[in-house]
């Protein structure tokens, strides 16, 4: 709420005399389990909006970012979308880390015809949602394809089979499907599936059990709190039996490296999915983004959620381009314009055609990479 007031007062200072500005909504977890991811997304959006405003805004009007905190709770997310949808100047809503929240919001989003931009949540049904026309666009990982990247890394690292550790939510279930599919394609058998609840207290027991059952490799779909417990439990397993972990990126949405002690972290062979690392930008725009990020938010030794910054940054720029192309902020026209954008040089990659009518995914499996933590606890690309 404070952030909201702050953003608005900034706007009042700058454009007090002009008409009300465009609004881009941000609906993400900014204070709970995945606040690091949520804050990264808001920073990326803020950097893009600053650039857009400096060049005269969208359709000649300035843009403001209005942030709402859903704390990872779908019920709050729905309430946030309701509140944002009342603003007639709303251009679109940027989502957060959590797939369950995004899934819960889809009905309302389509009822109100709101452009929904997904910079992080990876659940396949967020985009393959059955709505026609589809107002959800993603510039992030898709579980369906991520499973291939994660499991082929496991195969390359010599895993005979994998045991899946999945959270008991829409995201977990979405991964169950995609991992199963990928395992068949890669001929890497799934040894078993362990489901767990948020806030579960028995994760270390699950690990002990599966290790005793002979599990050598774990494929993990979890957010930071449960991920922290699981990695700690794996680190405590005797070295000779300690399984390798191949994780979806949910674990780095929170302050993962601060919660898992470095001494524990280095013990585990942990590989996790991402689209980039802070220190190795993929494009010139990426280098510039890193520079302007550090200029605005200070230099940092590492940034494990920087994918959130880059995804949101590119998404906001793509949205602005689409609106300019449509010549209107009408969501139906903007939606069509997004599907017909041309080549764009972004911070993540150069997008040939970011979205099409059939394809609302800006990234594909070729953009996914597997990372690993180095001795200092900073992520680097695992070759």
């Amino acid at each position: 709420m404070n952030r909201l007031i702050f953003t608005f007062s900034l706007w009042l200072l700058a454009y007090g005399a002009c008409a009300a500005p465009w609004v881009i909504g941000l609906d993400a977890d900014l204070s709970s389990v995945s606040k690091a991811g949520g804050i990264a997304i808001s920073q990326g959006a803020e950097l893009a909006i600053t650039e857009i405003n400096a060049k005269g805004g969208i359709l000649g009007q300035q843009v403001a970012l209005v942030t709402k905190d859903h704390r990872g709770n779908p019920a709050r997310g729905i309430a946030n979308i309701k509140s944002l949808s009342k603003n007639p100047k709303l251009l679109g809503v940027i989502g957060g880390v959590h797939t369950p929240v995004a899934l819960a919001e889809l009905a309302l989003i389509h009822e109100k015809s709101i452009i929904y931009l997904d910079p992080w949540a990876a659940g396949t049904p967020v985009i393959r949602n059955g709505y026609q026309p589809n107002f959800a666009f993603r510039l992030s990982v898709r579980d369906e394809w991520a499973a291939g990247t994660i499991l082929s890394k496991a195969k390359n690292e010599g895993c005979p089979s994998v045991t899946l550790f999945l959270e008991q939510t829409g995201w977990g279930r979405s991964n169950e499907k995609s991992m199963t599919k990928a395992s068949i394609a890669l001929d890497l058998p799934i040894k078993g599936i362990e489901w767990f609840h948020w806030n579960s207290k028995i994760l270390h027991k699950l690990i002990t059990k599966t290790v005793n059952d002979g599990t050598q490799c774990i494929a993990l779909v979890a957010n930071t709190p449960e991920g922290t417990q699981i990695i700690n439990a794996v680190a405590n397993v005797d070295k000779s039996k300690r399984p390798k972990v191949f994780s979806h990126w949910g674990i780095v949405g929170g302050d993962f490296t601060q919660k898992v002690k470095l001494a524990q972290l280095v013990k585990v062979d942990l590989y996790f999915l991402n689209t980039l690392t802070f220190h190795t930008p993929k494009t010139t725009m990426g280098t510039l983004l890193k520079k302007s990020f550090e200029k605005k938010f200070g230099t940092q030794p590492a940034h494990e959620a920087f994918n959130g910054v880059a995804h949101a940054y590119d998404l906001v720029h793509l949205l602005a381009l689409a609106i300019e192309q449509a010549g209107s902020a009408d969501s139906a026209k903007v939606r069509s314009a997004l599907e017909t954008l041309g080549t764009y040089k972004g911070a993540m990659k150069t997008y040939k055609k970011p979205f099409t009518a059939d394809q609302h995914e800006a990234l594909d499996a070729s953009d996914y990479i597997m990372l690993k933590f180095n001795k200092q606890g900073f992520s680097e690309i695992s070759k």
Partner: protein
Amino acid sequence: MTFRPLWLYLTLKVIPLALVIFVISSLAQFFMASQLESTIAVSRLQQDGKVYAQSVEHHFDALVRQVESIGKNSIITNALIDFQGRQNYLPLYLESVGIFDRTDIAIQLVDFSGEVIDGNYYAKTSTLPASELWASQVLEEGLQWVKLDQNGLFIAQPILNQGLPEGAILVNIDLNILKLGLDNIHSGFNRLLVSDNEEVIFASSALNYKGDTAALEGTDLWIKSNVETIGSYNLTAKIYLAKEDIAISGSLFLPIITLSLILFSISISLIIFLGVTQLKRVVSSLSLAIEKTILSKDLTARVENEGSPRELAKLGSQFNQMMSQLQKTTSTLDEIDAILHSMRELVVVCDSHLQVLLSNKIVNKSETQNTTLAQVVDLPTSHSFCQNNSENIEYEQKINNKIILWRKTQLILQGEVSGWVITGSDISDIKQAQRQANILSMAMDSASNGIIIVDASEASEPIVFVNKSFTEITGYTEKEVLGLRCNFLQGPKTNRETRGRLSQAIKNCQPIEVEIANYRKNGEMFWNHLAIDPVIDDTNSVTHFLGVIRDINSVVAARNDLKIAKESAEAAAVAKSEFLATMSHEIRTPMNGVIGMLGLLLNTELNPEQTSRARIAQSSANSLLVLINDILDFSKIEAGKLDLESIDFNLRNMLGEFAEGIAYQAHDKGLELIMDVSGITASMVRGDPGRVRQILNNLVSNAIKFTSHGEVFVQLRLIEEDGRWRIKGQVKDSGIGIPQDKVNHLFEAFTQVDASTTRRYGGTGLGLVIVRRLCQVMGGDIHVSSKLGKGSTFEFDFLIDHSNSSQLVRPSIDISKLNVLIVDDNETNLYVLRSQLKIWGANVTEACDGQQALLICQQRLDSPDTPLFDIAILDMQMPNMDGIELGRLIKNNEKLASIKLVMMTSMTYQGDIEQLAKIGFSAYFPKPATTSDLYDALNVMAEDGIALASAKTLVTGEYLDSLQQPTHSEQEISIPSNTRILLVDDNPINLLVAEGILEDFDINVTCACNGKEALACLAGNDQDEAFSLVVMDCQMPEMDGFEATRQIRAGSAGIQNTEIPIIAMTANAMQGDRDKCIAAGMTDYLAKPIVAQQFIEKLASWLSFRLNADK
């Protein structure tokens, strides 16, 4: 009359009273016992009431905890998040979850806004409290909400995720279910639980409670416990006890009371018996003592009071006192007599007729009878002292040398005058002391210093004496000051610190001397030199302070004048040095422009005349720079700011280079320059090579300057001294010499031998001053001896340090097997060559001209025992047959042709080197011979390998250099082609000069005018076009070079530039500038004016360094 014995008397008096007390206390005990039993019963009831209330609270707490645990269950948390999947498990969970094994309890799950997500059957059929009551506390603050009333117990439990409320579990337990549990708590009592709203939560059936508490308590059937409040559930608890259940009986206490009464009686009897016995003992002791006194008249008898009661002890001590008084009276008269005789003074007691009644031992006792006072004091009876009146009560009697002072006092007994007491004391010593004091007082009054004495025994420290001079100095009279505290002379200008010291010294009783501003009576201030000494008596305590004061106004005034004069002189000296230093800087800056531009000019296409003029201008500018450097050095010396470097350097190489440089000057004048460095036994040393070179340069240049023909001989030796090297050197010339009377002034600034010398030879006259100072700073000195017209010898020495990398130079070829012939007409030269070669162990043969050399060779050929020479070293200029001719003759002789020839030439020899090669010379090097040249040449020739074969024509110094290190042209190539340099200077001429030099080497240059621009340039560049190095002026407007460097290092110009090499370029050649540059973060330092070669070498060294580091 008959008396009862004591015990019987007391018993009869005490027993009746004791009986009365006995009866009363028995009755009281019976009464108290019955009260006690009733009180115990009630307090037990209160205790049970408390325990009951606690048990009820624990029971409810347990219920609440069960609900809490449901709220923490991960299924519940997950259900909040798992929007789609929760219908699969949430209803089942809510139906099955129980509290205390009862599932017939309403349970409901709500989301963050209080919207119901799901609930069990009972929740759907029962009414729960409205959400307005609990929503804000539970869903916003995350706190539990509990309510107990006739509907039962309602608990709203927040569900926390990461500490934040995201929903709630609502539970309602029906009152009937609650009552089942409450019935089991304290079931043995009659219990009542009422809510704050007077709603009955629970009541035992025995109470037959109808909801009216007043009615229940109105009957006297019940005793009730206190009301116990169960705050957390807004509840009160009570327990009731039927009155008939409390039975009172005193039977338990009867035997205890009887027994205690019997014990009471026994103890009373015992007390009386013991009391009587004790009393009897004391009274008997008293009567015994009295009896003893009466019988024996012994006054020492006393009563023993130990252990007696107070009253009897008082009686005893009164008796004892009476006895002591009696004893004292009898001894007083004897004591008075004894005291009188033990007195030192004479005492005579007379009656009113002045007849002696009593006198002490000094007056003859036998004479006491009928002796009058007049007789005792040896006076006529008519003398007033001997009359019976108080007219004259003192009289001084002189006996022999003694003076006795008699005093007469009336003797008054019982209020009446009954005679006289006359005392006589010897006052001879006092009289003597009075006389001496008078003499001292006179002396003090005639002293010229003021003297003041203060009584230290009194707290106010009053003045007790001042002399005449004191009154003259201060203007106060004696009367005015006596009794005053001595600080009255102080006033407004008196130094506070001095005051403090004074009072501290007086407090500690220590002597002190100060100069203090004091005031005369007329208000005039004067400087007082005050000395205070404590006067100490036999007991080591201070009785007085003696102060001596002196008016030092004139002394202080003189001293102040002197101080002002000194300060102004020092300021003038500093100003002069600073002026010189500033001037030098000011001159150096434009000089940089001049020299730089001339250098550039010479690199352009010029016609011969222009070239010649430019060269002359350049040479003049260089001379001027030397002069300015001298002045700067001198001003540094004057300002005491001469700093020395301490770096490892190769002394031999340095001397070699020096010799080559200076040799031009000598040979230009046709002088022979001879360097003897055979005494330099170590090549690597540690010290300031620039200063060593400066010393040599000054001395040798001087020698050359003042010598028109002959030779200049330079000799240097290293001598070990306490772990360091002492360099001893001499520079000897055959020049004009110095007159004896001028020798002493030679090392003074701006001094030359005479004005005509200055006119003829030029120079500032600073060189020798600088040399001397340098020698002294390096722990040595310089001396000169000279003969007018014959030449001068300067002998100097200074210290340098060992270098860790120090080593003796030994040829890698075994030179000891070599046979060397040296040919030179100059004896000194021969001596030097021979010494050096012999150090290396070669067999040396000398010849003083060509003829002799040929003769020696022939002799060797004739005698097969002696080997032929391997190498011959020939001088170029020799009388009769020069070196070329001799060489040709040797080479033309088949038998001698194997001798390798070395030509020694003067630097001015511009002959054809190829001609020398044609004749058959193998090597040639310039005079004076340097160790490294000689050594290297011998090695190359003796080895006779590729190195010799590769020499194009001859082995030369340059060729030898090329074998060891790449030439400068190769270094230039090592500057990478993409090198970009940022040049920062506010002076456009300097920028032009530096830019010109750099462009010659094809280096890409960007210019900035101050620190701010430099930062902007650096920050604005991409990685592809990054700068390799920064050349930075120090003094610039806007932002100077120091600040700019600091900011670059701090990252203000981008992270990529924080470690970029920065070379300072400044005209500030004063001491500390280099340190200041390095401290600011600069990498290296270059003094203006910029010399192209130095500049480019410095760049090359840093750029190649950078290049290597990158690799």
